[in-house]
């Protein structure tokens, strides 16, 4: 993104930081679905099962509401919306910690495919399948991978397309049918697609910190891949996918933080100790008020990133780095405050607070830690390290 010259960051002329009526309508639909079928209590009950994600809930979100195809143009089988709408879906997903592969399949995998030549049938067909919610796809990179990507792809591709290597900690790997693999080919970087069920592909589930976003290690042992893009095009497709994922993850983090603040305010206004609602004590009020300000600020940062991605602004890398560096710690702080201010109940398995803490902490590492994003920013805005 940066060719070496320090850019003193020119923000987009007029980023639209509000929500449109259509976006609010989409939010209402997603929220009502998640309230019915993916509220935190239901999510909690469904954990520890052997199922990778809630398939019924995913189908409803992806196909009935059509959320899976938001980023895909209509002529390719999608809804022709933008990152702004996908961000609204992610706010709601964060608010309910719904165990659905929205970020991984509908955002990151879809964006990677959109970066390939979709005049080709072997790109257009899986794209339409992902957009329709018929297939779940993931980009095979470790979840902590920041935009800019891994220095060296972990997978090597032979001239005949045989893939060899191991990619660890891939989010939603176990539930994915389609794997998009960034590999070092005989002529440089390349992006392949592989069926998860193909010979030579093994998925080992690992126990994740965040039970609502399963992780798996992928091992490729001569698995036959289809070459989707190579060289700069492959690199750019992966970069755009990671940038979009990181930018929209900020909206999920906003949703997580919002739920935590709302629940904490609700609980502390009711819970009495020392003869008063604990929420009337200034020591607690100030913490919640400070958190509210951070959540309000996170909303501006997340909306700015979504708008920059939606409009293809050249400021997108700065907007994304700012949003990730800011929103990730806000979500973690909100979840930590939620546990602490709930007192003993906040430490129990029955109360959903821990689901939000685990999602927030795992999201903080996902797609680049805040420190990685600040480091990227240093280069983007010309604040060089010593």
């Amino acid at each position, binding site marked *: 993104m940066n060719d070496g010259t320090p850019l*003193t*960051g*020119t*923000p987009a002329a007029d*980023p*639209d*930081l*509000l929500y449109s009526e259509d976006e609010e309508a989409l939010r209402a639909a997603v929220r009502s679905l998640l309230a019915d079928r993916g509220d935190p209590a239901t999510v909690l009950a469904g954990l520890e099962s052997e199922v990778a994600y809630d398939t019924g809930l995913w189908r409803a979100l992806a196909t009935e509401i059509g959320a899976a195809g938001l980023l895909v143009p209509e002529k390719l089988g999608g809804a022709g919306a933008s990152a702004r709408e996908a961000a609204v879906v992610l706010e709601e997903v964060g608010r309910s910690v719904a165990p659905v592969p929205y970020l991984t399949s509908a955002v990151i995998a879809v964006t990677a495919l959109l970066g390939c030549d979709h005049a080709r049938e072997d790109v257009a067909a899986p794209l339409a399948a992902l957009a329709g919610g018929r297939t779940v796809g993931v980009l095979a990179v470790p979840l902590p991978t920041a935009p800019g990507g891994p220095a060296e792809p972990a997978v090597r591709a032979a001239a005949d397309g045989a893939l060899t290597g191991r990619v660890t900690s891939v989010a939603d790997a176990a539930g994915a049918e389609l794997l998009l693999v960034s590999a070092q080919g005989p002529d440089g970087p390349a992006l392949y697609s592989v069926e998860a069920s193909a010979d030579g592909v093994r998925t080992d589930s690992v126990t994740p910190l965040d039970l609502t976003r399963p992780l798996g290690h992928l091992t490729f042992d001569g698995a036959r891949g289809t070459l989707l893009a190579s060289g700069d095009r492959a690199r750019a497709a992966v970069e755009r996918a990671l940038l979009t994922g990181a930018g929209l993850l900020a909206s999920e983090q906003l949703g997580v933080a919002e739920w935590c603040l709302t629940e904490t*305010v609700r609980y*502390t*206004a009711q819970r009495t100790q020392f003869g*008063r*609602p604990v*929420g*009337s*004590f*200034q020591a607690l*009020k*100030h913490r*919640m*008020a*400070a958190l*509210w*300000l951070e959540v*309000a*600020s*996170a*909303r*501006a*940062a997340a*909306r*700015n990133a979504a708008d920059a991605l939606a409009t293809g602004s050249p400021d997108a890398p700065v907007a994304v780095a*700012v949003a990730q*560096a*800011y929103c990730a710690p806000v979500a973690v702080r909100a979840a930590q405050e939620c546990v602490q201010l709930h007192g003993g109940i906040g430490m129990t398995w029955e109360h959903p607070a821990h689901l939000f803490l685990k999602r927030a902490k795992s999201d903080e590492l996902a797609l680049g830690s805040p*420190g990685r994003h*600040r*480091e990227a*920013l*240093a280069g983007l*805005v*010309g*604040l*060089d*390290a*010593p």
Partner: protein
Amino acid sequence: MTDAEDLRRRTVELLTAHPPAETGRLEFLRARFDAGLAWVHFPEGLGGLDAPRSLQAVVDAELEAAGAPGNDPGRIGIGLGMAAPTILRFGSDEQKQRLLRPLWTGEEVWCQLFSEPGAGSDLAALATRAVRDGEGDWIVDGQKVWTSSAHLARWAILIARTDPDLPKHRGISYFVCDMTDPGVEVRPLRQITGEAEFNEVFLTGVRIPDAQRLGEVGEGWKVAQTTLMNERVAIGGARIPREGGMIGVAAADWRARPGLRTHDLHQRLLTLWVEAEVARLTGERLRQQLTMGQPGPEGSGMKLAFARLAQEISGWEVEFLAEDGLTYDDWTMRRPDGVDFTGREAGYRYLRAKGNSIEGGTSEVLLNIVAERVLGLPPEPRTDKDVAWKDLPR
């Protein structure tokens, strides 16, 4: 309804009738006021055209492009931001006609006689007394503090206790005080920075005619809420570019002085840069909400964010500058007309920024306001609620 096109046409007419290059500054400002282009959302005849507030930007852009003189909001900020909206809402027709035009043009500077040595955050505890004499005038005695521009001011907005037998919020009335009246004494109050930007004001037997009262007797607290709300909107309401304000100064220092860089300072600068950018975006989002007529509660929090950032960035800067951070530009007592938060040097900024979390409502009080009014959390029990002011412990 006045629309953008109409305002643009009126602005061009003003510029044609009074070309800025050939018109005196004051003459131009008066003409602008009379054309209703001063604050377009004010009523006709009072400097406005009853237009939507968001359309002011149309007028300002045209005038700026034409090189028209501005009305120096620095020294007249209190008049514009606090006195004017209160006079507009609670003043009589005579008061509005007499006071608003010279206020806007800057011919008459305003100050605010609210805070007292014993009543800062607990503003309603104020002790300055106003007692009615036989002729119906009010005689005011007391002491005010933190009064910006008092040494320049022609007028003041004043709150004083008119009934000590009522609970503290109910016995207050709101007045316009003539600062040239006998009994008004202004003394500079020297601050932490060495300069005297504020004053103490001593009021001794000051006679204020009843016609200079705003709102009903005993309703002064309600009137003051209008003033205070406008004050907090005014703080942090300006549109700033990326790297505007204090973070821009810190970033420029970083780029200019590679020899002083350390890894620790780099990490902290990047964190502050992100926070400053997010505060800028939050302010921008608030402005977009206001323009769309959907005001959000973010305004209540913006002052908190700006105060914390100003303090942290200026503290970082003093540390970064190392030996230069150990020196100070000038301790001479000066009386500035307004505050320049990014002017002077790092040590001054560091010291002046300490006031940001105190003036205009302390951060602690603002956090209470956010907690109770935005989040709906229960208030703390009050021991002063239904007690007559005169019976409160002091």
